[in-house]
């Protein structure tokens, strides 16, 4: 244990650098996944025929092994190559499913009576979505983003396989050196990051729920 802290202290500059890279990878990919996933989730509540294909594709994405996905991405222009871009594309693809599904579930679970009332007040579909459905679905959507973020922290360690840095660098180095201290230098900060983000987003989720009940 003391050995571990000594090692962390001795390599603190590297630990910090890779932690920042890791946060960057998770942050950018989660934001992009929200930007893509939420509209997709909304669209499939309006176009029932698209629901099966969209959720099916998002499901299949989850099952692609990361190294295989990197193999496909290397030759692609703009989104591929080696480095952070390919890693972020892979992370977005993995984050889509929980975000799309929870957006869809959150909106479809809005009480039909509430939606009827909104229609009765003469709201357009766009107004119903913006003023009624999305606010009521928000806690469920945040729960999906929370799942996507926590999974993302774990999956982002494979970014090191394509030269994109992050805490996975320690894990890959440690495995090739057969040195568990180096592996832990990557694994423990990543685990802490996942716990902190999970706790933080849980607070957001609870606060939103609480406000909904008061109003």
């Amino acid at each position, binding site marked *: 244990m003391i050995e571990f802290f000594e090692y962390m202290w001795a390599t603190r500059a590297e630990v910090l650098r890779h932690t920042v890279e890791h946060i960057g990878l998770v942050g950018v990919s989660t934001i992009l996944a929200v930007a893509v996933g939420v509209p997709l989730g909304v669209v499939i509540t309006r176009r029932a025929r698209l629901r099966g294909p969209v959720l099916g594709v998002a499901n299949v994405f989850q099952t692609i092994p990361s*190294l295989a996905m*990197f*193999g496909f991405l*290397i*030759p692609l222009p703009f989104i591929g*190559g*080696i*480095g952070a871009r390919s890693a972020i594309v892979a992370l977005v693809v993995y984050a889509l499913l929980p975000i799309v599904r929870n957006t869809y579930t959150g909106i479809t679970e809005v009480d039909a009576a509430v939606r009827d009332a909104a229609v009765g007040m003469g709201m357009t579909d766009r107004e119903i979505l913006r003023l009624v459905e999305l606010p009521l679905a928000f806690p469920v959507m945040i729960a999906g983003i929370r799942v996507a973020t926590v999974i993302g922290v774990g999956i982002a360690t494979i970014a*090191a*396989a*394509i*030269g994109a840095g992050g805490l996975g*660098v320690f894990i*890959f*180095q440690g*495995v*090739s*050196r057969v040195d568990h201290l180096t592996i832990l230098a990557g694994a423990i900060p990543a685990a802490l990051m996942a716990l902190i983000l999970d706790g933080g987003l849980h607070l957001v989720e609870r606060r939103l729920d609480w406000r909904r009940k008061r109003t």
Partner: protein
Amino acid sequence: MTSNHARRSRLPLLSFLTLLPACSSADLTIASKSFTESIILGEIVAQHLESKGLTVDRKLNLGGTFICHQALINGQADVYVEYTGTAHAAILELPTERDQAVVRQQLDSIYRVNWDLEWTEPLGFNNTFAMLVRGADARERNLRSYSDLSALAHVWKPGFGYEFVERADGYPGLTETYGFRFVAAPAVMDLGLTYRALADGQVDVIAGNSTDGQIEALDLVHLRDDLEYFPRYDAAPVVRRAALDEHPAIRAALLELGGTIDDATMRRLNFLVDAERQPIREVAAQFLATLDGSNLVPNR
């Protein structure tokens, strides 16, 4: 005399028996490590010994270096194919030695004294780190050796696996020996992906394995290590001396396999299994068939 019914019902029984611990009546047990090349070599050795009338139990895909080594020491296996450089560094934990005669002599004596094991004839190939470049680049710029590469290093971008960058006998010593000054720090990534990155032009030189089947498939060229920087990893069967005493035919049979598999042949065998997904048993049988009439005299 067996009826059809009896023959059918025996199959599941047989497959069940192979799961039981070794209490077999086979003459000897052959192990291999858990990667394609090692399994192919185990299968080649197994089939060749079978062609000499010996019965063989296969424990292929057994595990890593230490597990195979331990299996021989415990007598749970009698033969597996090991690499000289791996045994020297990982099992004997000796410092890197580039003189192959010294390595071989150390292996022979320590294995014999400590574990009553014997290194037999090397199979003929050397699975070492290999600096690889695109075939087009090699032809266009007439690259043959690592020394030729040092003239281009200042404009070329390397991509390496984590292990190669970490190991003292990898990247650090290489740049020192050849005086490489690459234009950018190496892109460090998964070893398998470096092949893709090289083929796609994302990097210009990588460190692969000299017997990798992808080398031919992707039109890559393995440059010559003209200053003999990398230690040799010559593959050779390691055998329990007790088994050799019991079945003298083993030594003669392994002697026949000596020197029959060069780097290009091993690359082709790996390629057939990994890229073309041919069954290892058939690949091994086809290889042994090509040896018929040359230095092999099967007595069946």
